[in-house]
């Protein structure tokens, strides 16, 4: 059974926030401007983003409501009645509630009846896991269609007050790094077992991922304080104590980050060797990568070996819409499809390398219709 992406949607909360305005939304930590902000922004290249919190750091829309809005936007542009949706597959790094699963909250917000439900939890690649589950469900003919939604509201972790709770240590680079990297938003894809009657559809040829958590330490995390090897957030006697220890900060071990390039390229070369992809037959690349990585020597070697893909084929909207974690790849696909005149037969290669504990997901799509 073939599976097609027949509609896409997105929701970005509030107005676009430029680099100068970030701290007026997230707040100044201990009343001081960040010394790292400019350096990190220069390196990630992001120019504007959206936040689901206001300048008082109050939440303006919940994560599940953002997801529902992206889902509605996607359904609105499709031929399918909401009542006909058979599966809902959702992803986020952190729902509004710890429990139940994010998908339950999104289903309720969308008022979808009796769907088969799936929630995938993780960081950037969790949307690809949610998508793969939905793709397989249709492939094995358990469902005729599936709505897949990925949504993130990480700004709540970046409020100045979060950092100010931490006692006995200054905010280090690793704890501050993602504050200038991540922002909020949601993206949605509608999958069906037949192409849409008019316009273009994207056939999903395959989705594959390779995880290397057994090889590398944790690189991006919430739940463990700096220099702590055993104890995680629920092991403290109170949540307050965990927060004071810095166990609830979103951290990135920047030193490990370079491994993502090797891991991403290793997977790409493996897919070429297995005959799943031919770099010369890719028309468009959508990659959840920061462009600074392309200066890496590994990419030079790829180019020499003829396995690189010409720069003009790469598309990203990370710089304008922000890095919205797992939602990014869907938000990227949505904008790409809506701003390009795609021709039948063109191919798209999508790549989501996740630095959490090094999982790289890849997808191959072909334009039909």
């Amino acid at each position, binding site marked *: 059974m073939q599976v097609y992406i027949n509609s896409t949607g997105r929701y970005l909360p509030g107005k676009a926030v430029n680099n100068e305005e970030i701290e007026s939304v997230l707040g100044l930590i201990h009343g001081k401007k960040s010394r790292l902000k400019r350096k990190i922004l220069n390196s990630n290249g992001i120019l504007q983003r959206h936040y689901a919190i206001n300048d008082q750091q109050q939440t303006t829309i919940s994560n599940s409501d953002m997801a529902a809005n992206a889902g509605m936007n996607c359904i609105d542009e499709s031929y399918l009645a909401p009542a006909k949706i058979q599966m809902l597959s959702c992803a986020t790094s952190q729902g509004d509630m710890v429990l139940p699963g994010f998908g339950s909250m999104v289903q309720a917000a969308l008022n979808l009846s009796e769907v088969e439900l799936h929630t995938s939890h993780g960081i950037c690649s969790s949307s690809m896991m949610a998508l793969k589950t939905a793709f397989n469900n249709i492939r094995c003919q358990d469902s005729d269609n599936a709505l897949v939604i990925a949504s993130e509201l990480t700004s709540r972790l970046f409020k100045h007050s979060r950092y100010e709770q931490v006692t006995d240590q200054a905010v280090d680079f690793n704890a501050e790094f993602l504050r200038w990297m991540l922002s909020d938003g949601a993206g949605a894809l509608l999958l069906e077992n037949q192409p849409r009657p008019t316009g273009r559809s994207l056939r999903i040829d395959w989705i594959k991922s390779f995880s290397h958590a*057994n090889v590398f330490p944790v690189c991006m995390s919430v739940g463990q304080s700096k220099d702590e090897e055993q104890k995680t957030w629920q092991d403290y006697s109170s949540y307050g104590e965990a927060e004071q220890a810095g166990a609830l900060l979103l951290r990135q071990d920047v030193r490990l980050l370079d491994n993502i390039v090797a*891991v991403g390229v290793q997977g790409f*070369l493996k897919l*070429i*060797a297995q005959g799943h992809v031919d770099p010369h037959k890719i028309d468009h690349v959508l990659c959840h990568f920061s462009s600074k990585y392309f200066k890496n020597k590994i990419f030079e070697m790829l180019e*020499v*070996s*003829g*396995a690189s893909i010409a720069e003009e084929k790469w598309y990203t909207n990370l710089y304008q819409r922000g890095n919205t974690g797992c939602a990014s790849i869907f938000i990227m696909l949505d904008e790409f499809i809506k701003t390009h005149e795609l021709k039948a037969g063109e191919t798209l290669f999508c790549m989501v390398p996740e630095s959490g504990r090094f999982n790289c997901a890849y997808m191959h799509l072909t334009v039909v219709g």
Partner: protein
Amino acid sequence: MDNIVLTKLGQSCLQSLLKVWFDFDLAITQVPIIKRLEQGRLSIEDYQSLLLNLRQQVIEGSRWISRCASSFDREYADVRSTVISHATEEHRDYLILENDYVATGGTLTDIQAASKNIGSEALHGFLMYRASQPNPVDLIGAMWIIEGLGNKMASKWSQRINEQFSFENTITAFMDYHGENDENHLQALYRLIDRVATSPERVNDIIRTAKVVAKLYQLQLEEVDNG
């Protein structure tokens, strides 16, 4: 970068070599002593032990490269020249390594008297065997892995080691040395690949040797903890 013209076969060879390298890179990241090194949990005894084990293969390294050079006949005189200059450059590497060992507090007689570990035996045996074959072009695959390791030592391991220990004199001269002239070495390897990857069979031979060398090098590193 601009003057590199790899042939189609050369490109496919390089692509496969890159894949072998990344697979090897992932595999050695899981070797316990390398895990400790890369995650900042190496003891000075660990580092001494690593140097002591590496030295036994490094000192033999110059032998297989020299043997390899002499196995190229007149048809490959140009390749022979490249390999000879490679051998000249590296045949005294072990002295730098020994200095590092002494700088960490080790004694010269200990490192000189140590024998090869099981992995080093296998690696050296394989390399000498291949180097003794007529026109052993497949050894480009071995050079690729060893060059890659040199780069990894210089760019990553040396930094990690220096973060953990501080001695009066450098203890990472051997690892740092392999980062010098990196770009030239890479260019020379590209040229060699273009020169010898002239048929699909040749490419297969090169890849196979790269894989064997990678696996045996991994074994050599695994055996460091078993000394």
